[in-house]
């Protein structure tokens, strides 16, 4: 699924989007607030969903070759996070929904 569809379904605020982020292909969703969980995951083309708004969330996303991370719960992102997302070419999104609702919405569009 293309990232643009996800951005729209989640009414996303785009904190940073690399060139042509709309076309990033997402094959699986991984949600956790534990960085080691993300690092343990074995899936490809993941969208990371977390309520942890830290620079390490962006780093962990990059370590598993993911190209997009969604910060839930209407949390603000720091300038440092945006700079890091830019450096690592990772799409950084903020959504107002809690993690659970974010995942429910994602589940709905992934099915169609």
């Amino acid at each position, binding site marked *: 699924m293309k990232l643009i569809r996800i951005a729209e379904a989640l009414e996303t605020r785009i904190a940073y989007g690399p060139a*042509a982020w709309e076309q990033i292909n997402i094959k699986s969703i991984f949600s956790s*607030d534990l960085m080691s969980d993300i690092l343990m995951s074995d899936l490809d083309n993941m969208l990371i969903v977390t309520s942890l708004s830290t620079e*390490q969330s962006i780093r962990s996303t*990059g370590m598993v070759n993911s190209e997009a991370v969604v910060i839930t719960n209407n949390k603000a992102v720091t300038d440092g996070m945006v700079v890091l997302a830019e450096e690592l070419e990772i799409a950084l999104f903020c959504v107002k929904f809690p993690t659970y609702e974010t995942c429910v919405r994602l589940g709905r569009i992934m099915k169609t």
Partner: protein
Amino acid sequence: MTNMGQKGSFQSLPQGCELIGDLKISEVMTRNVLAVPRNTTIREAQSIMKENSITGVPVVDSRVVVGIVSMNDIMNALESGRMDDPVTDWMTFEVQALAEEMPLSFAISAFSKYPFRRFPVVNKRNELAGIITFRNINLALIRELSRQLQEKNNLNEHSVDMSSLELVKEYLLSRYDFENGGKASSEIKKFLKGHGIPSRLIRRVAIASYELEINLVAHSDGGMLGFDINADRVVITSHDHGPGIADVDQALTEGFSTANEWIRSLGFGAGIGLPNIKRVSDEFIIQSTLGLGTMIRAVINIHTKDQHNN
């Protein structure tokens, strides 16, 4: 091709096809498309376009496109001083719409065939589903191009640039410096990527390195993360001078962690870092003495297959 008002057929472009593969218009178009009803005035349409920085907007009658108002139409109305006319008096009726399930190549040929800068996209029920502009197509092409390049790099292991694949480097990490924890691993990851190492392999190196790096920051009194890379393998070492681990076997058990509340609030302390490093490494050694410090060595082979053959 869905025709509204005018008949026509598009040919697909042979050159574009290879690159865009089997992308469909629906995967590339903008979905959240603004549309206005028939009774909208030109003035209202103009302000909607201005607010949203767009240069045209479809006119719909219960979601079916009946026309499109462009900047041109608005200028014409303005010249005649008739900004309060309904959009239907000035809009273009003969709208070429594209169907969302069409291949992207159809959209590309539509742009070369017609003077329009945007095409509304409709679904099977002929309702407005999105809009497609040149920008959408450019972005799709850029993304597809870089994806295909990357795939080529990943498949072709011979493209690994062995000649200069050599690096010995050490990074100093301080206790609780979470701000810098991860920088070393990112740098190494970038270095390997620059040498065409397959991304699956880079991911394993990055995971081991990052977990070690964070452990130094979170659990040690400060230490050193070292890399020794050549064409055969990546060796990552972590050294610190305390406090050491009381029971190494316990530390290697999934779920065991001594992380405090603060570290946990930062997303660490699940107790699966060390087991994960072991999982992704081809060799893993840990030595620790309470009061003295901890030494960990993780090796990830680059040429596993070759080694098996020899």
